């Protein structure tokens, strides 16, 4: 397998890439997978329509599906990492059956389990998540390695042009932690309030 290993030293800066993407889809309801993706979302600017996960590994895309079906007039963005999405690969099949027009899954892919010591993940060893999503009948898939592609990606998500998955190749590097609230009840109630639903 060594010959197929990616060194992944020349990907994009994850914080800059996330901020650029998010600025292009200001109406999106955003669910972030646990670990670095949640920190990236928070670092790009906290907002009520962000839902950060601190656990539930593998669940981000399925949360996004339930949310997208419930809120068909809002773009829904699942921002997650390769390790988190690999654990929820079956959810790509489930999403591919439902195909809500307003759901996008964006995988920040460094080919590493960054939170636990940068161990290589499957995506560094020959597995392609865009190819999986395409095989699951997603309407569009993208494999992005350039900053110039992020504004169009944000605009595509904002426009709700079909169910899609984008992989953004990012550098495998440590960045300073930016920690959102880990109070799940508060995050839930804040998110629902932004949509006009009162707390219990």
């Amino acid at each position, binding site marked *: 397998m060594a010959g197929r290993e990616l060194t992944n030293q020349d990907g994009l800066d994850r914080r800059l890439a996330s901020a650029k993407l998010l600025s292009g889809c200001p109406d999106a*309801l955003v*669910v972030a997978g646990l670990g670095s993706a949640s920190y990236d979302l928070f670092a790009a600017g906290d907002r009520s329509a962000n*839902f950060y*996960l*601190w*656990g*539930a*590994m*593998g*669940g*981000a895309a*399925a*949360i*996004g*599906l*339930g*949310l*997208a*079906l*419930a*809120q068909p007039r809002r773009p829904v963005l699942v921002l997650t990492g390769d390790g988190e999405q690999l654990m*929820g690969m*079956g*959810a790509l*099949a*489930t999403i591919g*059956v*439902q195909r809500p027009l307003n759901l996008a899954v964006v995988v920040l892919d460094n080919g590493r389990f960054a939170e636990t010591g940068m161990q290589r993940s499957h995506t560094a060893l020959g597995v392609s998540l865009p190819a999986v999503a395409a095989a699951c009948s997603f309407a569009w898939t993208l494999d992005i390695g350039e900053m110039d592609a992020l504004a169009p990606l944000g605009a595509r998500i904002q426009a709700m042009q079909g169910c899609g998955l984008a992989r953004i190749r990012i550098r495998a590097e440590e960045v300073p932690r930016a920690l959102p609230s880990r109070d*799940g*009840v508060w*995050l*839930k109630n804040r*998110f*629902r309030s932004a*949509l*006009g*639903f009162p707390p*219990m």
Partner: protein
Amino acid sequence: MTEWQDRIFEVLKAGDVRQVAYVPDAGHARLIERVEGAPEMRGIVLTTEEEGVALACGAWLGGERAALLMQSSGVGNCVNMFSLVSNCRFPLLTLVTMRGEWAEFNPWQVPMAKATQAVLESMGFSVYRVTRADDVEETVQAAVDLAFESDQAVAVLLSQRLIGRKSWLAGN
């Protein structure tokens, strides 16, 4: 056999449950058929039950009620995902058809049958068990109310005695 399943469907419909996620089970077959035929509901077939836990939480974030249908073996597939429910105090309604507890032919169903209620309760669920068809409607109604009025995780275990024996061999 189908009658109590139709009553579950009516309770879910009247309770404004819009997303019904499932890994199929023979005991849920009639209910799944009713859901898939209902314009006001969306049936969502899963690859594994934990997706349905996450999906139900996402639905609630977006203001919709969801339900998760599975068999007892599926409860074991969900355990870590239940932490999403308890950490955020999401409402979660799951209807679980029991295997491995009554006149079971397949011993592979037995270990999870023994663990199902304990696993659910250890992860914070209120668990209702139904063994008589006459109790199904009222119990599911109580579960809907407890889940969505009090933001609780609630499981209704539909016993294998209620569901009936699975026929394994021709003429059996």
